[in-house]
């Protein structure tokens, strides 16, 4: 066990999987010599060489398109898109091909491909560097969409994503990269994709979130207990899609109330799907409308105003209060 930041934990995941499986290839802009602009791939090129840690020219569609070819060949490309705000340059390669090639070839070609990209706000970045648009991928059949919430699960999920036979979009919250350290076991650890985790038990209200928002959500749960004696149950989705609602439904059947929290814009966002699943599967148990605490339906503003955009502790606490007092 070592205490690690999320950057270090992700680096460990890559390092161990690369050592274990020579089919794993890391590629992207500045992932080699530079070690990635956030240093997630730091040092990999020294250990594995330029053949396995590939600095590419500046072209996202090509990075993904080339990865698709590699995956069809049977390799396991882990490509980095420098910021998720530039993953739309390769949207068509993902939608038209990565998400379909296994299916189109009737199972002939595997598509074990991971697209890593930093997402989300809170790091005083330039325009296009703070978006949270996981819903685009979550709505795309054939993909898996994963977002870890801390060093330990980031490492375990990345290992699982690399081993997964299907294409995985793996978003990493920039705000978490160096925010805190966690014990991460040296030995191998995986986490199954498609399984949300109950991370705090409670009986009064269910809070559902993922990624960077897990921190204010957990804080809010604590504050609710301290301030009002409210016991919030908290679920970390980890995998956004395919969304397994079972544990969510179970929790809401118990609490009767739910708050969904994400940075992404509200309308047509991830929260809407969660609301819908809960309404479909736990209709009679709901005591109040489910609250969505989300980014607004506008472009996330440049950093002078981003704090007011991103859901924070008080916004979450207030929403929980509303469901409780409904």
């Amino acid at each position, binding site marked *: 066990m070592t205490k690690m930041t999320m950057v270090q934990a992700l680096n460990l995941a890559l390092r161990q999987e690369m050592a274990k499986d020579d089919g794993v*290839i890391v590629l992207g802009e500045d992932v080699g010599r530079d070690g990635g602009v956030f240093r997630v791939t730091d040092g990999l090129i020294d250990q594995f060489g330029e*053949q396995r840690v*590939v600095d*590419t*020219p500046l*072209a996202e*569609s*090509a990075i*993904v*398109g*080339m*990865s*698709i*070819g*590699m*995956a*069809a*060949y*049977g*390799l396991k*490309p882990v490509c980095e898109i420098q910021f998720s705000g530039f993953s739309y340059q390769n949207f*068509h*390669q993902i939608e*038209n*091909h990565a998400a379909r*090639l*296994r*299916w*189109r*070839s*009737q*199972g*002939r*070609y*595997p598509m074990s491909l991971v697209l890593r990209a930093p997402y989300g706000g809170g790091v005083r970045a330039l325009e296009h560097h703070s978006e949270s648009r996981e819903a685009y991928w979550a709505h795309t*059949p*054939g993909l*898996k969409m994963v977002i870890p919430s801390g060093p330990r699960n980031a490492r375990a999920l990345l290992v699982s994503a690399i081993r997964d*036979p*299907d294409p995985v979009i793996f978003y990493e919250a920039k705000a978490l990269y160096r925010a805190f350290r966690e014990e991460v076991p040296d030995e191998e650890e995986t986490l199954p994709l*498609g399984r949300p985790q109950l991370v705090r038990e409670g009986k009064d209200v269910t809070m559902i979130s993922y990624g960077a928002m897990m921190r204010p959500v957990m804080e809010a749960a604590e504050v609710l207990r301290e301030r009002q004696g409210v016991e919030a149950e908290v679920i970390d989705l980890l995998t956004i899609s*395919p*969304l*397994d*609602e*079972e544990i969510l439904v179970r929790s809401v059947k118990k609490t009767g109330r739910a708050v969904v929290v994400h940075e992404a814009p509200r309308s047509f966002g991830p929260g809407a799907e969660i609301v819908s699943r809960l309404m479909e599967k736990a209709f009679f148990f709901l005591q109040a409308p489910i609250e969505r605490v989300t980014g607004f339906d506008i472009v996330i503003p440049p950093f002078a105003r981003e704090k007011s955009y991103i859901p924070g502790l008080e916004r979450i606490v207030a929403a929980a209060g509303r469901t409780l007092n409904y």
Partner: protein
Amino acid sequence: MPRTPITISENIEYLSILDEEGRLDAELEPDISGEMLLRLYRAMLLGRRFDERLLDLQRQGRIGTFPPIKGQEASQLGAVAHLRPGDWLVPSFRETAAEVWRGRSLSSVIIGNNGFSEGAVIPLDHNDLPVSVPVGSQVLHAVGLGWAARYRRKDDIAMTFFGDGATSEGDFHEGMNFAGVFQAPVVFVCQNNQWAISTSFAGQTHSATIAQKAVAYGMPGIRVDGNDILAVYAAAGEAVDRARAGGGPTLIECLTYRVMMHTTADDPKRYRTDAEVEIWRQRDPLPRFGKYLLDKGVASGEEQNDLEAEVLQEIQDAVDHAEKQMRTMGNPLDMFNHVYAELPPHLAAQREELARELAEAGKEVQS
């Protein structure tokens, strides 16, 4: 020298060996065995007759929309002829002759054109990708495949086909550039059939040729008479050998013509003249090659006629076979197959929904 021309070090050439009058440049004539010449001729003939038959079937409502290849057989076959089974063919959507050369069955083409996913299946003994509809996008996959082969220390290469229209897409550019930087073993074959639906070559780019676009990527480029199978064969042979030997990628422009409509949904009379089409009908690659074989004593007129009959029979058998097969296909529940390696719970539930609905409607399907 403060104002000096920049020397273009890339080699960009034009190649023609057997011209439209059937005149042969004997010095450039590639050395092709009689057996291979016959195989190529048969494949061209099969490509041609199959295309014609598909058009009939489409007009009879027995298949859906499809893109005819007539006139482009030489461009396709002269190039794929160099591939070994372990190589990768990465087609667009207008390379039926090339796909069939690589082992795709005629019946699978018919089945695919009838809207059955089953038609896309690639023969197990060939490393090819299925048809790719989004124009230009497949070019990048070839780069990844070529890169991967080299990484695995194989001397397999990737050959990708695309049209003149495709060269306008960003993906063509990104693919060429990546191939150049990584010196990937990829042969880029542009079938410049001079039309992209209604857009003429002149409306597609202000560049005089596609071949010269190779200059932008520090890569050799060559334009060949795409209706001259000997020229295509010669140019592709050089490119394939270079790629296999680690010499990097090549761009080949086959100058040819889309004699038919874009797809069966298209009406080319809206945008081009019959006179233009007529000129190109005269440049038909098939009789040109037939005459060459005749002159060379590889296949007599009679032998060519026999081949014709053989090929027609093969097509008829494929139609019969496909139509028989399709009667047993189409279980709607199969649409959930292969979307993921394993069906996730929410899809299992949706599949169940559909199964229930079908059962209620009295439709018998195995679920």
